[in-house]
């Protein structure tokens, strides 16, 4: 549990309830398909690929960072998500929404909505300044949905911290299943496509 100022003595870790619910739901499916939009970490790939039938990895942190640096038109950012409609049982967005401006965030959510199966889940994290004062943190997952924080080493997407109501508004097409705030300051949101 987080008990002091952010420092190099981290990473701390905690057990993610929302992530556990996602994994419990998708592990039961014989053909479960999970999209991870987060940075490529071996721990995450090892963990998720052992739990789901098909793991899709599309590192939007790195791809969008590259698109921005090269001046790519924002309207074409989501070409990376060239997946069919209604194909994912769950999507891991991590804190990606907080790394996008409002128009980008709304358009990402719209794309996620079309890619998610009816009944499918989307999980979202927000760290806030308490957890990540300079916005250079990302998550890795190990056994039993233990989430650890580490430096976001391969992307320079800036962070903008949002209030809960803003997050919920952006995710409006989805139904909120669960929202949690931990003592360490991490907030987790679990959404479902109806």
């Amino acid at each position, binding site marked *: 549990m987080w008990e002091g100022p952010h420092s190099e003595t981290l990473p701390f870790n905690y057990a993610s309830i929302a992530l556990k619910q996602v994994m419990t739901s998708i592990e039961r499916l014989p053909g479960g398909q999970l999209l991870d939009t987060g940075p490529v970490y071996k721990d995450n790939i090892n963990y998720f690929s052992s739990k789901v039938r098909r793991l899709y*990895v599309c590192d939007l942190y790195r791809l969008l960072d590259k698109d921005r640096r090269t001046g790519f038109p924002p309207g074409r950012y989501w070409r990376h998500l060239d997946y069919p409609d209604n194909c*994912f049982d769950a999507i891991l967005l991590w804190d990606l929404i907080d790394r996008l401006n409002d128009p980008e965030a709304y358009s990402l959510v719209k794309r996620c909505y079309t890619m998610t199966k009816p009944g499918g889940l989307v999980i979202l994290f927000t760290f806030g300044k308490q957890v990540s004062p300079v916005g250079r943190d990302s998550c890795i997952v190990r056994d039993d949905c233990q989430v650890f924080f580490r430096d976001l080493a391969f992307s320079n997407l800036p962070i903008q911290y949002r209030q809960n109501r803003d997050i919920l508004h952006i995710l409006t097409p989805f139904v909120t299943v669960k929202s949690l705030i931990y003592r360490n300051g991490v907030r987790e949101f679990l959404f479902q496509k109806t």
Partner: protein
Amino acid sequence: MLKKRRNDKDDLKPSFSPVSAEIAAVSPPPVSAVSGQEKTVIGQHISVEGVVRGKENLVIEGSMKGSIELEKHQVTVGPNGKVEAEIHADNVIISGRLVGNIKAQGKVEITKEADFCGEIKAQRISVEDGAYLKAVIELERPSDKKEMPKPFSPTASGTDKSPTSASPELSKGK
């Protein structure tokens, strides 16, 4: 250039390694006796287009387009390698650029220098942090072994659909 490394057992093993490929280079590919420990290197300034089959390990430092079928051997895409291919091998190591699908009997290793786009079916996978990856990963599970193996389709690259865009399996109802 295309290099052939032989070991002392070569002369004792007169088996033949068929190589079917168009070599865009001065030197033709050497075809010779093989053993499990040998490897063929496609050098940095070599381009190969077509189907590669054989019974030894392959290292690609140049360009390759087509398909590679080395079911019981290892394929390595080196840091300078640029490959667009379907790969069917025992183990695959990617340190360069690869667009295509991999079916490995054993392990797929992706190093942090890699740039991979495609689908991986393997028993095990190892990915270094920071690898450039857009992939579909499907690990073989114990229950999979009971199923009849599907024949690997060595479709040459150049199709309209990218591997990742074509790959997701649509909903069959929950």
